[in-house]
């Protein structure tokens, strides 16, 4: 259980779930949640590589903290967008928001 592969395996599963969620979910909030999953899978990777990569400094940790901060900002903006979306089209179903269709 103390090998790099096991961490990567977990993060891969998380990433796959995240992508799956982002692509299949119709609800904008659920998509946001999927994005969070993806970000966190990346965080796991950062930290795992830092731990097993013989790095003297804590670069991976710093990056993951950045990602968390970014995720918080992103969640705030994304929620604002969702609220605006709801205000404009009366739903948070992303399939309904296809103004850009060619």
């Amino acid at each position: 259980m103390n090998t790099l592969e096991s961490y990567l395996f977990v993060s891969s599963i998380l990433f796959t779930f995240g992508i799956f969620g982002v692509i299949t979910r119709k609800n904008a909030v659920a998509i946001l949640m999927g994005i969070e999953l993806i970000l966190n899978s990346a965080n796991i990777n950062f930290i795992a590589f830092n731990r097993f990569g013989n790095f003297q400094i804590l670069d991976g940790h710093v990056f993951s903290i950045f990602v968390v901060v970014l995720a918080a900002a992103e969640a705030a903006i994304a929620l604002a967008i969702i609220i605006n979306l709801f205000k404009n089209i009366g739903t948070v179903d992303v399939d309904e928001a296809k103004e850009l269709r060619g």
Partner: protein
Amino acid sequence: MDFNDIRIVLYLFLPLLSFIILIFFGSKIKDKSHLIALPIIGLTLLNSLSLLFKSLFSHHGLHLENSIEWFNTGSLVISLGYMIDNVSIIMLCVVSLISFLVHLYSSEYMKGDSRYSRYYAYLGIFTFSMNGIVLSDSLIMMYIFWELVGLSSFLLIGFWFEKPNPPLAANKAFLTNRVGDIGMFIGIMMLFFSFETFNINELVNEISSESIYLTIAGILVFMGAVGKSAQFPLHIWLPDAMEGPTPVSALIHAATMVAAGVYMTYRIFPFLTPDALMVVALIGAITAFAAAISAITRNDIKAVLAYSTISQLGYMVMALGVGAHIYAFFHLVTHAMFKACLFLCSGSVIHAMHHSLHHLDDHHTDPQDMNNMGGLKDKMPITHAAMLISTFAIAGVPFFSGFLSKDGILAGTLSYYHNHHGWTVILPIAGFGAAMITAFYMFRLIFKTFYGKPKKPEIFKHIHESPFAMTIPLILLSVLSLAFIFTFDFNPLHADGWFKDMIGYGKHNFLDMNEIKHGIHHAHDQAMILSLLVAFVGIVASIVFYYLNKVNVDKVSKFLDMIGLYRLSKNKFYVDEIYNLFLYQPFMKFSKIASIVDWDYYDQKFIDSWGWITLKISKLSGNADYNILDQKIIDGTSHLTNFTSKKLKKIQSGIIQNYLLGGFMCLVIIFLLIQQFN
């Protein structure tokens, strides 16, 4: 440039000045035009008269010559210059005197005409060009002015161009003159190429031997005179030229321009070969006789005078042909006086008739038809007297100028016959015959116009004598028709005097002028008796026919008609008809054929077939362009683009997750590929 040069230049430029002023400022001057033109022509007249007196009182007469180079093309040097001798001085006097009188006369005759100033302008350019002919020292310069008088004649004949006939008459005159002028030009060039000069005096000096070439050249140059002086067969334009205003007829078509041909032939006379002179004499004789016969049956007063002019010009030409060139020039001058007088008198009558008709509001009666006149003697005494005097002159009655000159010409023809015998007998016959007929038809004119009962009393009632501006020229010209003026000798049968002394017999390159002089002198008595006789017969016949009305004219004409004579005269020897038949009709036929070939075949078939082919080709090309290039290739590209974009736009669904899926799949593929190729 000395005084004489300036003086000669003035001859040319005074009338030209009048022309320039009136043509450019005429619209402002209008009815005052004669106030400009008259003094200018008066100055020209004074100039001529002073020259004449200077010449009269100098022993050898004047002889002035000067020339300047006009242009130079290496070996060819053309110069412009003047040559003045006694003949040209007299000619200048005649031209400027009659021009002056006609200017004066016209101020009344043309009064109120809408183109009054232009009329005077044309008279100015005519006088200018006529002086140019007289002054020229070379044939080429003479030819230039020759064409200029042709132009002014054309302008003045067609002066009333809003009427139907004058423009036609002007064209006829111009085109007929063209025929003669082409001959003249060829003749001048023939002389130039063999003698390398245009100068008349140099030509006279250089030509020394007779040749057929010279004969042909001489006859060709004479052709110019045939056209301009209305000799048979180119005389047809002159009767039509009477469509112009009557003073113009007096100036141009009686006194001066038509005499220019005689003047020119007089100038080249010394080097005309005897053969050429024979042709000249024959043409003159035919013209004199035939025109006199044609004049008998004219009813238009001006037409009688027109044919009479042709006949008298024929006399002059005949005189040149028989070598009596001194009498030709003498007759030119006397004829200028009495014929101008006759024309101005007829103008006076026409003027009166016109006013009377205008008064009656009658626009259909012809004011020139003698059948509408009669008995005008008492109403127009001055005109009648002047016309009677000039008729005496033209008929060859002693005491009048025409007698002297005509007598000399007839003596010349008789002498010519004595020297040559044979067929030349027709020359005196034509001469005396024409003299008799002239006396006859001129008195016919007088009797029909001025005597007898008025044929139209209502017109007669309103006839008045013309105003002074018109009668003064008549009086002056009739005085100048007296024999005394030309001889200063009270013997009416004696032609010697200042005039003959001034001209002299001169010399001829091939003929012995002394012999001719003696011949004429010898034939003189015989000719005088005969000419008095024929004039007497003619006048008496006329009195019997038209004054006493003893003979029914209709019966006589019917009788003559049986042998075809009357009809011949009435139809002017069918010359116009012959031209119509042999020149005009074939030409029209030829034009018609040419037009058919050109239009129906060349244009319609050939040219239009090109059009048809072009049409077909362009249809094909249009088809290719539109249906293939445009529709298929150009539109095809856009159709393809359209089709592709229609297909491609489905990708752009607007559903964000699809994009993401696509992006993710691509990423996966890229990773797989990178893994593959590592």
